[in-house]
C-alpha cells in the first residue's frame, strides 16, 4: 500500500474519530462513580453503608444525616420525597393515562393529608415501631362522573419483618353506600389502567433495598409538555387560578438555587436493589434514581424487572411547597409523568391547589376516620382546571437517555414503540398508533 493510499484511508478515519469524539464529549453528561467530581463528592460518599443501630437494619447515623451522604443515606432522604408530600396539606390530585392508541382516561380526587408522629418528613416512618400509622390520607373523587363521590381513607403503616402490612385501606363506594376495608394493593403491581404502582405512590422503605451510588449526571428536562399545550391553568392554595406557560415551568421551580448556568441540574444516580430477605418475590429487580445533588430530590426514576430489562420511567418536577421546612425538605412534585415502555402507556399526575394544613384535634379525630366517609362530606374545596381532556395534548413520553450507565440500564424498546417515540419527538406531541400526521 502506497503512503498516499494510506494517507487517503487514515485521514478520513482520523477525522471521523475526531469529530465523533468531540460530538460525544459535548453530549456526555454522565459520569460513573469513580469519575464523580471532587466538588460533588463533598455531598456524596462512595463508601458505606455504615454501622447499624439496635434494630440491626437501620443505619446508626440518624436521619437527615450530614454531608457527605452515602448511597443508603440518600435512599433514606428519598423517603421524604414520596409522591404525596410528607406534611399535613390539602390538594387536588389530578391524574390520567393515555394508551398508545390515544384512549384517554382522567380523574380528580381531592386529598387531605395528615402526618402522625411528626410535623413533616419521614422520621416517624423510619423510627416508628412496625405497625404504627405514620400518615393518613382522605381522598374524595370528583371526576370522572362514574367515580364522583367515591372516597378512600389510607392509613400508612410502618412495616417490619413481621409486619408486612403497609396500608390499611378503606373505600366508600356510592353504589354500595358502604365503607369497606379493602385488601391493600400489591406493592409492585400497577393500578388499573395506570403505570403507577402502589409503591410509586407511597415510596419505598430504604431498609428493604441495597443502595449503590453509580455516578452523576446532568438533567435538562424531566416532565415534558407537548408543543400544542403551551399554557396550563393551575390553581394556587385557596383555589385562585392562574395561567402558566408550560415552557417556563422549571424542573425544580423558580426558587431552586442550584441550577447550572445552562439551566441543567446536577444529579447523583443511585440504584436500589430489593433485599432478598425483605422482598423475596418483588417484581421489580432494580430502581435507578436521578436525585438532585443538593436536596436529594428524585427527578427521574426508572424501574427494571428481575431480568434487568426496563419496565417504566417516571419523571418529576419539584417545587418548594412547604417553606417551613429547611434544606430543601419542603420540596414536592406538582407534576410527574410515567411511561410503561412495554405497554407504551403514559400516565401523568398533577398536584394542584396545594395548601398547607393544620388539623385541629377534632379534625384529626374525624376526617381520617374511615367512618367519616359514610357522611359523603367533601371538606376539601380545592379546584383544578389542569385536566388535559385531549389525548393529543398529553405529556410526552420521558426521554430515554440512551447510552447512560449501560451496566445498569438495559433498554430494549420494540420497533413499534421506538417508531412512536421518534414520531413524538419530531412532532412535539404524542403520536398514536395508526395516526397520520398532517
Amino acid at each position, binding site marked *: 500500500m502506497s503512503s498516499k493510499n494510506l494517507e487517503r484511508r487514515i485521514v478520513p478515519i482520523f477525522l471521523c474519530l475526531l469529530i465523533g469524539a468531540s460530538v460525544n464529549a459535548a453530549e456526555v453528561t454522565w459520569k460513573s462513580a469513580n469519575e464523580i467530581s471532587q466538588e460533588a463528592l463533598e455531598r456524596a460518599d462512595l463508601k458505606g453503608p455504615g454501622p447499624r443501630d439496635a434494630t440491626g437494619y437501620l443505619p446508626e447515623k440518624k436521619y437527615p444525616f450530614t454531608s457527605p451522604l452515602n448511597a443508603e443515606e440518600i435512599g433514606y432522604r428519598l423517603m421524604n420525597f414520596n409522591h404525596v408530600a410528607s406534611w399535613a396539606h390539602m390538594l387536588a390530585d389530578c391524574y390520567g*393515562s393515555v394508551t398508545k*392508541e*390515544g*384512549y*384517554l*382516561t*382522567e*380523574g380528580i380526587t381531592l386529598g387531605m393529608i395528615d402526618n402522625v408522629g411528626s410535623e413533616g418528613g419521614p422520621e416517624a416512618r423510619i423510627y416508628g415501631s412496625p405497625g404504627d400509622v405514620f400518615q393518613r390520607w382522605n381522598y374524595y373523587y370528583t371526576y*370522572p*362522573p*362514574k367515580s*364522583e363521590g367515591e372516597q378512600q381513607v389510607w392509613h400508612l403503616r410502618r412495616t417490619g419483618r413481621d409486619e*408486612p*402490612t*403497609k396500608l*390499611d*385501606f378503606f373505600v366508600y363506594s*356510592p*353504589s*354500595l*353506600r*358502604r*365503607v*369497606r*376495608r*379493602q*385488601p*391493600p*394493593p*400489591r*406493592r409492585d*403491581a*400497577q*393500578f*388499573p*389502567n395506570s403505570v403507577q404502582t402502589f409503591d410509586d405512590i407511597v415510596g419505598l422503605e430504604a431498609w428493604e433495598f441495597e443502595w449503590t451510588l453509580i455516578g452523576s449526571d446532568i438533567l435538562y428536562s424531566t416532565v415534558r409538555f407537548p408543543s400544542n399545550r403551551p399554557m396550563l391553568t393551575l390553581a394556587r392554595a385557596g383555589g385562585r387560578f392562574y395561567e402558566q406557560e408550560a415552557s417556563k415551568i422549571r424542573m425544580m421551580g423558580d426558587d431552586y438555587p442550584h441550577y447550572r448556568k445552562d439551566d441543567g441540574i446536577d444529579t447523583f444516580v443511585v440504584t436500589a436493589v430489593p433485599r432478598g430477605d425483605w*422482598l*423475596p*418475590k*418483588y417484581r421489580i429487580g432494580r430502581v435507578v434514581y436521578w436525585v438532585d445533588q443538593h436536596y436529594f430530590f428524585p427527578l427521574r426514576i426508572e424501574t427494571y424487572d428481575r431480568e434487568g430489562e426496563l419496565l417504566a420511567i417516571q419523571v418529576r418536577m419539584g417545587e418548594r411547597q412547604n417553606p417551613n421546612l429547611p434544606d430543601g425538605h419542603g420540596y414536592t412534585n406538582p407534576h410527574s409523568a410515567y411511561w410503561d415502555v412495554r*405497554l407504551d*402507556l403514559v400516565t401523568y399526575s398533577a398536584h394542584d391547589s396545594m395548601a398547607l394544613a393544620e388539623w385541629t384535634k*377534632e*379534625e384529626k*379525630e*374525624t376526617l381520617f*376516620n*374511615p*367512618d367519616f366517609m*359514610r*357522611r359523603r*362530606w367533601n371538606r376539601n374545596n380545592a379546584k383544578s382546571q389542569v385536566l388535559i*381532556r*385531549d*389525548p393529543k395534548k398529553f405529556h410526552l413520553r420521558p426521554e430515554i437517555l440512551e447510552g447512560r450507565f449501560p451496566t445498569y440500564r438495559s433498554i430494549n424498546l420494540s420497533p413499534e414503540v421506538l417508531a412512536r417515540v421518534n414520531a413524538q419527538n419530531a412532532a412535539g406531541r404524542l403520536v*398514536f*398508533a*395508526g*395516526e*397520520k400526521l398532517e
Partner: protein
Amino acid sequence: MLFWQLIDEEAHLLGFRFFRQRLTGWHLSFLLLVTFSGEVATASMRDRLAGFDRFLATFDPGGRYLTRPIERLVPGLTLNGTYTFASDALLSSHDNVGFRDRDYRWLQFQSLFELEANYQVNSNIQITGIFHALYDPVYALQGSDGLYAPKENERLRGYEDSKDIARELYVSLRTLKFDLVLGKQQIAWGKMDGRFIDAINPMDGRESVQLESSDYERRRIPLWMANLTYYVGSVSLNFLWIPGFEPDEHATYGSPWYSPLYSPADSVARHNPTLLQGNVTADGYTVDRRSKPNWNDFAEHQLAFRVDVPFGAWTAGLIYFYAWDKNPSDSITGRFTENGVNYLSLERRHRRLHHFGFTADYAGTLSSVPIVGTLPVVLRVEALLSKGVPFADLDEYTAALEGADVDGLRETDTIKGAIAFEFAFPHNTTFIFQPSLYYTKDWKSTLGSGFGGAVGDAWALAPVIFIKRPFRFTRDRLAIGLTLTPYLSQPTRNSQGMKTKVKVSYEFSQYLRGKIVYTNYSGGDGNDLFGGYRRYDNIGIGFIYEF
C-alpha cells in the same frame, strides 16, 4: 421457493395435483393482491378503530351540553346523570314452566335514567335529590300472555308515581361532631356482599333470584327518616328514626321472575283480579283485613341504632333495629264454607321484629406465600339475629280448617351471617370466598318462609366464590368475573342448586361501560331455591352511561 413448496404440500394434501399447474401468474398476482389488500384493510380498520377509540374516550354529550353548563350557571349545584340499559334473555325455548305460561324470551329490556342533584347551601348544609325515570318494554314488546303484571302494578313497566320518581330527597346538616340527614333516603349498613345487617330499607325484588348486590343501590326502596350520627373521638353513634314504612316488593303474577312453583296457572291467574290484587290467596282464602304501619302514630315508627369502633387493625360495629317485618304475614281470623269446602279468612299485616347485628373487618398481609410472596387479605364478618320472626305454619292452617282456634303463625328466631375472605392476587385479581349461613330456630317442615331463615329447611349454607380479573393487554378495560353461589341446606333438602354468573365487562370510555352477563341455574330439585329456575338460564347485555 418456500411458497411453492407450501402450495405443493397443500395441493398434495387436498389431492388436487393439478393445482400447481393451474396456478398461473395471474392467480398468483390475484392472491398477492388479495393478501396485500387484506393487510391494508386490516391495518386501515385498526387505524379507524384507534381513531374511533380516541373519539369515544372524550365523547360525553351529557356532561358537555347538560350538567357542566348548568353547574356553571348555578354555583353550588352539582349534577350527575346516569342512563342504564339492562336486558336479559332466556336461553331456553318458549315453554311452560311449572304454573307459569312462559311464552316470552326477554326477562327485562329496561331503561333507567337517574339524575342526582346536590345543592350546597353553605359549608354545612346540602340539599340532595335523586330522581328516577324507568321504562321496561318487556310487557309490550313480546305479545306475551304470560306477562300481565302491569294490569295491577304499573310500576313494573314504568315509574309514574312521584314516590318512585322522586326517589331520594333529603337535607344534610353537617358539623365535625354530628351529622343530621332529614328526608327520604336509603341506608346501607354492613360491609358484606349480600344483605345481612343491611336491613333498614325494603327492597324491590322484582328480579327474584336474579337480583345481585350490584342492583341494591337502584332497588332499595328509600324511606322518610331522620338520620343522626354523633362522633365521640373515633367512635361513631348512628341513630335512625323512621316514620315512613314501605314493604318489600316481589316478583308477582304475570312478571318474568314469578316463581313457577306458585299456583294457580297463569291462564287462571290473569283473569282473577281479586287474586292479583291480593284479596284472595291461591288457596282461595280471603284476605279480609290488611294494614300497614301508620306514619301518624309514633308507636308504629321504626328506630335503629348503630355504634362503630375502630381498634387496631379491626373495625367493628353493633346494631339494633326495632323494625317491622317488611313482608306481611297472614294470621287466621275465621273460617267459612263454600260449596262444601272449608276456607279461611285472613288478616294480612306486618309484625314487629327486633334485629341485633354485628359487623367487623380486619386487614392483614400474609408473607412468604408460595408463588405470590406477600398476599394482602381482608376478613369480614357480619351477622344478624332477628327475634320473633313470624312463619306461616301449615299444621295450624290444617287445624284451623278443622275448626281449631289458632292464628296460623309461629314466631321464632333466625340468624343469618357470613364470613368473607378477600385476597388481592397479582394482576389485580380479586378472589373472595364468602360462606353465608341462614338458620331458623325450632324449625319444622311445615313452616313457610320468614325473614332471615333458610329456604325450606332448618339451616342453609351458601359458600359463595367470586373471582374477577381485569386484562392488562386491554389496559384493564376488559374484565371477567365469575360468581358461584351453591345453596346447601339441611336436614331435608341437601343441595338446592347453584347459581353461576359469568360477567364480561368492557369500558368503552370512562363515561360508557358495557357488559355481557351469563347466568346459569343448575342442580337441585324443581321446588328448590335455584333448582326451580333451572330453565331460566339467561344472557344479558347492558350498558351504562354516566355524565
